[in-house]
């Protein structure tokens, strides 16, 4: 963050020096390197952004900065000098004394990283009390103070709640408070906002930035999201496969990345499909209202039209009911009221009552390919089943078809006898797509299918989908929370909020102002590559 006056501790001296760090991970009965010889230097009060795709080793390095290796990992070489102490050389006890007190950690999923059995306050003050840095009373008081600084609601009492009683954004801030409790010199932020909705993310980012600035704490900020790191970091280090690609000052890095790889990372953002107006409609959802047994309505009087051969992107944050919409269409959740008609005829509401033929014509692809593929079935079995089940293909004809499908999703046939466990995330998703295509459907519902993937892979998948639509002319309902993805693939957009449709129409109409209030907020919350974006946004929202 831009040099905002001298903090309590003097700035500029080296705080952390990592030299020639090697880390290995254990899997498939043997050790193999994750990080090969990374060097890193961090000055007091400085914020360093570690960025890279999954498997780049950014989190591992973050943890190594605390002299810690995850279960199943080990640091094999190198030194981690923290304020002159080599964390790899000192005893476990010695490291323990530093952790929490002088080096703190903020984990990705606060929900999972808070102990569900204890109240927030206990956990916030635990380190301070355990390390004997403060008495309970004092610790509690300073905790409440931190809650206030982090703009947590009811700072006096929120500490007495249990983790599950607090929202995700608040938890993430509470965890920051916990990290700050001992006023550490260094905090490791490990993807602290990845699990949050964009609108929440903004607030959390803001409060984190303020507090770090206030105590001018040094920080390592690990993330895969360039736009985010651009807001938080003074310097950025790009990592790939456990090696440093390049490191530079934030602005310079954004302006002129020197490495090819970095450029490709930057490039992803630019993919955009020209929209095509609808001619006729395949699926019509009329005033559908749905609810899970006895609970509040998750869909209220929703009406959506899906044109044939086009893509309707359903955008919304968690709890907006977009996934429920998918369940209603597939028949997993029969609506309370309203009707759905498919290709002219009324669609039986519940799955059981739908004829095989209808089931075949509507297919679905999920967010987590790992969960969507049976780990005990080979790719071939996965793709073959719909062919046999729907089309009754056998023997040679089936095999030929399987070949074609693999070709369509750009995978070689030697993947056929593999199990999902042996495929990368992108490949798994391709198999899921192939499985959907096998039924040769007219409508495919894609539920957040790219959000679990790295950006480069995301792009490949999106391109694939676009191509397939061009060739086979099926319609997509594309459920996502990511505006970039929407830009990339949508013809029409439906914006949902709290189970209602806020706005819908052609992509160009929805994305260009004037927007509905919520859409405005949503769009404005999407981080931009500009380092000053957050500052400006906050100013404009005057938080």
């Amino acid at each position, binding site marked *: 963050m831009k040099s905002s006056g001298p903090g309590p501790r003097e700035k500029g001296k080296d705080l952390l020096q990592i030299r020639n760090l090697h880390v290995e991970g254990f899997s498939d009965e043997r050790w193999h390197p994750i990080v090969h010889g990374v060097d890193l230097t961090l000055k007091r009060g400085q914020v360093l952004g570690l960025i890279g795709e999954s498997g780049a080793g950014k989190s591992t390095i973050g943890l190594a900065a605390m002299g810690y290796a995850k279960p199943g990992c080990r640091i094999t070489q190198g030194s981690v000098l923290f304020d002159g102490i080599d964390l790899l050389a000192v005893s476990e006890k010695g490291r323990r004394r530093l952790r929490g007190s002088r080096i703190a950690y903020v984990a990705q999923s606060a929900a999972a990283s808070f102990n*569900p059995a204890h109240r927030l306050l206990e956990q916030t003050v635990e380190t301070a009390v355990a390390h004997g840095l403060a008495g309970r009373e004092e610790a509690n008081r300073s905790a409440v103070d931190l809650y206030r600084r982090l703009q947590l609601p009811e700072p006096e009492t929120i500490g007495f709640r249990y983790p*599950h009683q607090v929202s995700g954004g608040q938890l993430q801030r509470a965890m920051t408070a*916990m990290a700050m409790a001992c006023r550490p010199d260094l905090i490791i932020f490990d993807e602290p906002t990845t699990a949050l909705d964009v609108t929440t993310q903004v607030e959390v980012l803001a409060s984190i930035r303020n507090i770090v600035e206030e105590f001018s704490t040094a920080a390592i900020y690990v993330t895969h999201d360039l736009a985010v790191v651009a807001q938080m970091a003074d310097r950025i280090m790009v990592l790939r496969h456990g090696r440093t690609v390049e490191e530079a000052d934030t602005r310079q890095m954004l302006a002129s990345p020197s490495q090819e790889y970095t450029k490709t990372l930057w490039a992803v953002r630019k993919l955009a499909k020209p929209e095509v107006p609808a001619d006729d409609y395949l699926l019509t959802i009329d005033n559908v209202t749905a609810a899970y047994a006895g609970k509040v309505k998750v869909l209220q009087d929703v009406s959506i039209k899906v044109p044939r051969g086009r893509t309707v992107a359903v955008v919304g944050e968690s709890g907006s009911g977009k996934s429920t919409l998918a369940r209603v269409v597939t028949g997993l959740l029969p609506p309370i009221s309203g009707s759905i008609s498919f290709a002219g005829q009324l669609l039986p509401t519940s799955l059981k009552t739908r004829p095989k033929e209808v089931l075949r014509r509507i297919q679905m692809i999920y967010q987590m390919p790992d969960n969507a593929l049976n780990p005990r079935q080979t790719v071939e079995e996965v793709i073959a089943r719909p062919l046999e089940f729907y089309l009754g293909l056998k023997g040679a004809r089936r095999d030929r078809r399987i070949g074609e499908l693999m070709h369509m999703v750009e995978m070689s046939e030697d993947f056929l006898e593999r199990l999902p466990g042996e495929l990368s995330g992108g490949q798994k998703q391709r198999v899921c797509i192939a499985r959907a295509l096998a039924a040769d459907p007219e409508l495919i519902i894609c539920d957040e299918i790219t959000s679990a993937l790295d950006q480069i892979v995301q792009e490949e998948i999106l391109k694939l989908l676009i191509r397939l639509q061009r060739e086979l002319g099926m319609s997509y309902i594309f459920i996502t929370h990511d505006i970039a993805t929407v830009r990339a693939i949508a013809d029409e957009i439906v914006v949902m909020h709290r189970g209602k449709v806020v706005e819908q129409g052609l992509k160009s109409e929805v994305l260009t102002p004037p927007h509905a209030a919520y859409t405005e907020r949503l769009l404005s919350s999407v981080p931009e590559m500009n380092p000053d974006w957050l500052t400006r946004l906050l100013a404009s929202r005057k938080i």
Partner: protein
Amino acid sequence: MNPVARTVLQRLGLGLVTLFIVSIIIFSAIAMLPGDFAKATLGQSATPETVAAFQREIGIDRPPVERYFVWVAQMLHGDFGSSFASRTGYRRTVAEIIAPRLYNTMFLAAVTALIAVPLALGLGILAALYRNGWFDRLVNVATLTTISFPEFFVAYMLAYLVISRDTFIGSDFAQTLPHWLTVSLNWALNAVPKFPTLSNVNDQTPFWEHLWKVALPAITLTLVIVAHMMRMTRAAIINMLASPYIDMARLKGMSPMVIVLRHALPNAWAPIVTVVAFNLAYLIVGVVVVEVVFVYPGIGQLMVDAVKSRDVPVVQACALIFAATYILLNLLADIISIATNPRLLHPR
């Protein structure tokens, strides 16, 4: 509504239904058994007339269905009825027959639980703390072995240890061993306290003597149940150790002991108490064999006797008590799991 209260009510309701069905099952099972109380008691000396007279007196000449509903009616008035062993002018109520036996069983169960549960938890926690260390391996192998032994085998071996204090030297077995071994074994055996191998207690037995007499049964049962609970404790804790908030605790610089006790254990209670409850139930319901071996007048043996002699009212009562114990203990387990889980205790 408070989740605990809700569960309690729900389960109690279900429990009653279960009890009702159990009573039907048991009743019909006994009805299906060959012979009846009269024939069973008269045994070889039965003659048709005597049997008939007997059946008339205790009313088992009536059709089963009628008898069942009479019994249910009694139960609803909280009357367990009277044993078939009663005679005109000499009533033996089921309650008075069961009471002392139930007390004995509870006594033994309590003693065992007081030894076994803390032991199991302690060992489990230590094993989890020093997992994959020699201690862990040792405990693991030891416990696996103890659960593998037939109950009566353990019981007899313990009895043997006590008896051998005197008889070992003289036994053939001792002769077959090398001298030094015999001597040292004998020395070891004499270190064994002279526990009674006969746990025959009655309502006049004073407390301490009672305690002394159940020593062997208690030890046997402890050996039988500790393993199960200990292993579950260990497993549950280690399971928790895989979760992110444990990593977090480590990164907060907490010591392994603190991590296990303050961060893992509180989240591991549910599975542990379930297993503990299961074993406690076993202590009350499943100890027939041990009772037989040590001639301990517990309720298990009572039920077996009653089944043998077709004393239906007693069998029914025992079965209901057993079922009730099982249900209540499980309910207790659930309550504890709820109480130890904030998510359930304080819903959003």
